């Protein structure tokens, strides 16, 4: 309840202090003067007026009283002038001031009424501005969320494709791992085979060496035998000639010579046989040599195979390294995407500010509408002569109502910082509370 005016507020302005005493003093002076006049003129008055005209004492009393009263009023007014002239002037000024104030109040009332007409559109414009702010922040936040959703969608697509690649890469790596194991087995088999080949080659070479040695050892013998056979044959021929020249004495010698010749022939035949055998041995040696050459050629080919195997192993190693690198990249991209999701989620949380701003601005809009209603009510009261000077609800009560309707600690704290109202301890409870 609010009292806006005191009905006795202008009484002290109209009457000067001490006026009661001055009125009493003027009245007393007038009464004394009236008594003095009555006493001075009573004999003359009785002789000239009362006695001739009045037949009874009651008539005399009535006339004398009337005359005394009639004289008292002008005397009172006369005596009031010196005592109350300043009060009269004072009252006149007060009346003029009151008239001016009343006129000014009427002017102000008209002005206030005129201004009050602008309050509803003023508040409506402010509310509209707040709506505009809300719409702008909302559209901005919506656009931001849409962009972040699109960003996440693109990123998710990339991650999915990378995941497919990762799956394929892991499959390929597994295949390559199996193939590497298989290749290693093959390489082991080939290495064993090459080792055996080298062993055979060494044996062949040894055999060739032995044959060559044997052939080499036989060749001088054939020449010696052949020379012996030729010389023996020549000797036998000479012996035959000498035996023939000796005649009968040489007959026995001729037999010997013939035997020697036969021996030389046999020796020559033996040399031929040996030569044949040497030829056979030579052919065999050549054959073994051909085998050895083939083995050498095979060994050379094996060296080429080893090189190929080595290169294949190197390629496999490089491929494994590449596959591992690819997997590392894929894992890094996946980790990056998870980090991006975390950060986007953080941003989404920050964007919740718009809802908080919206609720606070809507509360301000409500308060503005309430203020408008209050001001309009006051304006109506001012022009209402029957107003009981009570404003219900008062602005203070409306403010207290706001304090009850706030939902956020920040609203209550802002209110309390201005009004000094104590805020609740709701802020002491955690923002996240599981029951």
């Amino acid at each position, binding site marked *: 309840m609010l009292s806006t005016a005191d009905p006795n507020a202008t009484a002290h302005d109209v009457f000067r202090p001490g006026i009661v005493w001055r009125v009493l003093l003027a009245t007393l002076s007038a009464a004394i003067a009236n008594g003095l006049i009555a006493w001075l003129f009573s004999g003359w008055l009785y002789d000239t007026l009362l006695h001739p005209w009045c037949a009874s004492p009651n008539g005399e009393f009535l006339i004398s009283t009337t005359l005394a009263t009639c004289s008292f009023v002008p005397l009172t007014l006369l005596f009031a002038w010196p005592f109350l002239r300043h009060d009269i002037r004072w009252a006149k000024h007060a009346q003029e001031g009151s008239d001016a104030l009343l006129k000014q109040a009427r002017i102000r009332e008209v002005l206030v009424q005129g201004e009050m007409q602008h309050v509803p559109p003023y508040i409506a414009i402010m509310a509209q501005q707040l709506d505009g702010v809300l719409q702008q922040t909302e559209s901005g*936040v919506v656009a931001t*969320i849409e962009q972040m959703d699109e960003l996440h969608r693109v990123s998710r697509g990339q991650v999915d494709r990378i995941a497919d690649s990762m799956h394929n890469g892991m499959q390929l790596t597994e295949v390559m791992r199996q193939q590497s194991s298989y290749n290693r087995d093959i390489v082991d088999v080939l290495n064993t085979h090459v080792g055996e080949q080298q062993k055979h080659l060494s044996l062949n070479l040894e055999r060739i060496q032995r044959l060559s040695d044997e052939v080499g050892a036989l060749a001088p013998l054939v020449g010696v035998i052949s020379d012996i056979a030729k010389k023996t044959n020549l000797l036998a021929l000479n012996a035959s000639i000498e035996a023939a020249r000796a005649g009968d004495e040489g007959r026995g010698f001729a037999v010997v010579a013939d035997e020697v010749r036969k021996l030389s022939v046999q020796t020559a035949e033996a040399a031929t046989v040996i030569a044949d055998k040497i030829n056979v041995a030579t052919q065999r040696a050549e054959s073994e040599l051909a085998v050895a050459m083939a083995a050498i050629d095979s060994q050379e080919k094996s060296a080429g195979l080893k090189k190929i195997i080595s290169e294949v192993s190197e390629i496999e190693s490089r491929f494994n390294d590449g596959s591992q690198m690819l997997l590392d990249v894929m894992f890094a991209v996946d980790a990056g995407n998870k980090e991006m999701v975390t950060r986007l989620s953080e941003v*989404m949380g920050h964007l919740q500010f718009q*809802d908080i701003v919206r609720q606070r601005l809507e509360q301000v809009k409500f308060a503005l509408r309430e203020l408008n209603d209050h001001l309009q009510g006051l304006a109506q009261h001012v022009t209402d002569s029957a107003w009981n000077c009570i404003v219900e609800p008062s602005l203070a009560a409306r403010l207290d109502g706001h304090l009850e309707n706030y939902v956020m600690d920040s609203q209550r704290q802002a209110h309390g910082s201005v009004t000094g109202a104590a805020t609740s301890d709701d802020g002491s409870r955690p*923002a*996240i509370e599981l*029951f």
Partner: protein
Amino acid sequence: MAKTVLYVDDSTTMVMSIKSTLEMNGFIVETAGDGVIALDKIKKGLKPDLIITDINMPNMGGLELVKSVRAMPGFRFTPILTLTTESRSDRRDEGKKLGATGWLVKPVSGPNLIKVIKQVLPGA
């Protein structure tokens, strides 16, 4: 298997923000603008693994929604989180009494929200 979350809020930006956050983290999200719409969806067969609701909404607020959902068969143990600007203790206590699982005051960061969801929704 992805868990389904029903998010109830009358704020467009909150719905978009929470929906995106949850979907980024592998949840399936259904939304409703107030308690009446949410209840209607549940009555039509929606069986969310988790319900997250605002408190101050038109038509039907979050506390009334909690009370109604708890009274429905099959939702006695469904986790219900409130996500609201409302911070008054008496409202929190009322939410707890009606069967809410937890009370989250806006704003809540995405990672914190996911952390809370994993606490109340094992296997998420």
